[in-house]
């Protein structure tokens, strides 16, 4: 404490000469409306980045002061306190004290508090002010405070704290000129506040109540509508029913709306790709552009509709406050597998696609639960597995009635594969939560914000932000792998022409791994399919089509016959089981890397899932083979 105060005062003459702050940190507790405020101030002028070595993400936005000078606003993770116990708090402390590598020490701090919850939130302000950096305290949600008959005297509070204080509303924009004034003032260091505070949280809290009382703080009443809606949404009978309706709605949006949108998008890209191809001279260059670059871009872009739709739906649920209630409803069920209620919606959306699902786990506050959810999400039967399942099942399983008109053999097999993936997800969650992701010290504690109308502007900014994050950070990896796969199928060249698939590098690789996959009943052609399906699971169909010399689009039945001749029934079961468990999806790998800020987790996940898939496929091949023989 003493050192930070010293450094500020040593720098005071420099401060007085300056016309503006350069870097200003924005800090506030979760549910203080900090992000809404940050978005309102900086709009689209934001960059997203990760702090080195941690999974914590940060946004830097740019605003101009009265003289037109650019100021960087750094949005810190939401924290209640500055005792560096959690990763988020450590990041906040490191940035505020200038210890974060690659991040300039902030010239000033804006503390965003929720004015409807002042006593709890003032504790953070106290901890920031004692750092001795010029501080502006914003009491956010002024509109809610006044509507519910709350009150606070800003001037007395400013006197008590020794810093400027303003009552603002990030949703209506009320009072935000205070931020512009503060940023343009570049006031010299304030007299460091002598807070009569003892180290304990209780001491801080007693101080906060005292200061609040001096400032005439009157807490607003709980909004009537929040109590009314809660008695409906958390009702013993209606609560779970409404939850089920919402969940089905989310699933339908992703599956019935997102999927066709993605397909339409894919068709468009294919058509434009083909049209583009006509304008290029046939040859390697044309193939690189169309089958490499264009297809690669396509395999990145097709995820966008689903990602944006899921984030739109989850954004509405989160901003309205319902997501917390949904978590309470789902918690009892999720706790049986060692997860909490917040994992439910991401896991459900993984049935459509693991990529948006993994990005949606950021609504889970507990780091360990979030990681566990990311790690099990790809076991859920995503839509890319369906074409593979359909083809293999149709090739080997004659359609017969099992339960009258309700259930045929093929549908039963499909259902079985869904159950298989789900059970493995449950088993993995249990394994993780009892070993590397034990959450003894991170129990389920969830704040219930009042219900609010979601702001379209804020939602829109988040969609743009997530879309950009996916395209830049995950998209580059997906693109790279697409190009590598293209190269593997187009080399070595014969007389300037790409080789037949069976002579290409990828075929050589397939033959190289044949000894490893032979115990599963697979030959090298299936091996090539396994390799190319890393681009996306359904690619195995096109690959096998090429290898067997049948066009899967026009001659689906012929491909099934060919597959039937190439694979034994036991091998077919093994192939289905392998696809149920393996992480055959570079987009998922790329997005896990992006969300966990490193290769450690995606590498672990890929190794684990491949191992599980291998062992299970091996077992399936031998057990089924035994019964058939």
């Amino acid at each position: 404490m003493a050192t930070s105060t010293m450094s500020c005062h040593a720098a005071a003459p420099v401060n007085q000469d300056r016309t503006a702050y350069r870097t200003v940190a924005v800090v506030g507790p979760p549910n203080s409306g900090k992000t809404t405020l940050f978005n309102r101030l900086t709009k689209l002028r934001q960059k997203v980045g990760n702090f080195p070595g941690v999974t914590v993400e940060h946004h830097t936005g740019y605003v101009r002061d009265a003289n037109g000078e650019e100021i960087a606003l750094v949005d810190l993770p939401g924290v209640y306190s500055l005792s560096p116990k959690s990763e988020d708090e450590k990041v906040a402390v490191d940035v505020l004290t200038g210890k974060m590598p690659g991040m300039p020490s902030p010239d000033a701090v804006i503390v965003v508090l929720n004015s409807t919850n002042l006593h709890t939130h003032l504790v953070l302000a106290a901890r920031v002010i004692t750092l001795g950096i010029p501080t502006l305290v914003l009491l956010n949600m002024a509109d809610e405070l006044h509507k519910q008959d709350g009150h606070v005297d800003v001037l007395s509070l400013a006197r008590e704290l020794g810093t400027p204080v303003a009552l603002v509303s990030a949703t209506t924009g009320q009072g935000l000129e205070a931020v512009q004034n503060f940023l343009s003032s570049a006031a010299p260091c304030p007299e460091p506040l002598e807070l009569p505070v003892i180290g304990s949280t209780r001491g801080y809290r007693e101080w906060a109540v005292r200061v609040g009382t001096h400032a005439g703080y009157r807490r607003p009443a709980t909004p009537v509508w929040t109590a009314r809606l809660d008695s409906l949404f958390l009702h013993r009978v209606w609560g779970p029913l409404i939850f089920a309706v919402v969940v089905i709605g989310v699933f339908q949006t992703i599956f019935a709306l997102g999927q066709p949108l993605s397909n339409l998008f894919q068709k468009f890209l294919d058509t434009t790709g083909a049209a583009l191809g006509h304008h290029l001279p046939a040859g390697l260059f044309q193939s690189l552009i169309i089958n490499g670059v264009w297809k690669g871009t396509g395999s990145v872009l097709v995820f966008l509709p689903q990602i944006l739709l899921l984030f739109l739906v989850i954004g509405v649920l989160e901003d309205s406050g319902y997501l917390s209630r949904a978590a309470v409803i789902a918690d009892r069920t999720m706790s049986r597998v060692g997860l909490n209620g917040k994992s439910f919606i991401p896991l459900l959306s993984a049935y459509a696609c693991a990529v948006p699902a993994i990005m949606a786990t950021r609504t889970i506050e507990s780091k360990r639960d979030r990681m566990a959810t990311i790690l099990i999400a790809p076991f859920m039967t995503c839509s890319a597995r369906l074409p593979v399942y359909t083809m293999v099942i149709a090739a080997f399983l004659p359609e017969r009635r099992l339960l009258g008109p309700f259930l045929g053999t093929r549908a039963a097999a499909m259902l079985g594969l869904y159950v298989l993936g789900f059970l493995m997800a449950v088993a993995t969650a249990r394994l993780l939560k009892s070993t590397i992701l034990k959450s003894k010290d991170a129990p389920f504690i969830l704040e219930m914000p009042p219900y609010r109308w979601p702001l379209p502007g804020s939602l829109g900014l988040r969609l743009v932000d997530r879309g950009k994050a996916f395209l830049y950070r995950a998209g580059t990896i997906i693109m790279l792998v697409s190009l590598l796969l293209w190269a593997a199928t187009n080399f070595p060249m014969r007389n300037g022409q790409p080789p037949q698939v069976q002579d290409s590098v990828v075929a050589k690789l397939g033959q190289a791994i044949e000894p490893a996959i032979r115990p599963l009943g697979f030959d090298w052609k299936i091996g090539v399919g396994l390799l190319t399906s890393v681009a996306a699971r359904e690619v195995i169909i096109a690959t096998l089509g090429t290898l067997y010399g049948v066009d899967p689009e026009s001659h689906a039945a012929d491909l099934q016959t060919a597959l039937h001749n190439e694979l034994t029934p036991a091998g077919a079961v093994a192939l289905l089981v392998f696809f149920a468990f393996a992480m055959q999806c570079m987009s998922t790998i790329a997005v896990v890397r992006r969300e966990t800020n490193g290769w450690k987790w995606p590498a672990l996940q890929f190794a684990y899932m491949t191992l599980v898939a291998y062992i299970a496929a091996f077992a399936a091949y031998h057990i089924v083979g035994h019964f058939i023989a």
Partner: protein
Amino acid sequence: MIFNFKFGRRRKAESARASALADLKVGESAVLAELKLSPPVAEHLMNLGFVPGLVVKVLRSGPGGDPRVYRVDGTEIAMRRDLSEHIDVELLGAPAFGD
């Protein structure tokens, strides 16, 4: 057996005027006394407003009675029974400060 156990605990609680938060019924209020939890968890709860001396009210319960939603000083928090049974409350008495 279960019935006896519950009965025994309630009687003991009444004589001491102290109880676990988990034992309060929906709608009941009490004063927070002690968080018998690991330091990081207790610290987190206190940051959210669960400070000894403040009044806590059981607002409502999720399906099946767990987790439940509590209110302290205007903040509403959901937690499971595995935490609330380790939080001691005093059944009667004035709040030490605040509220």
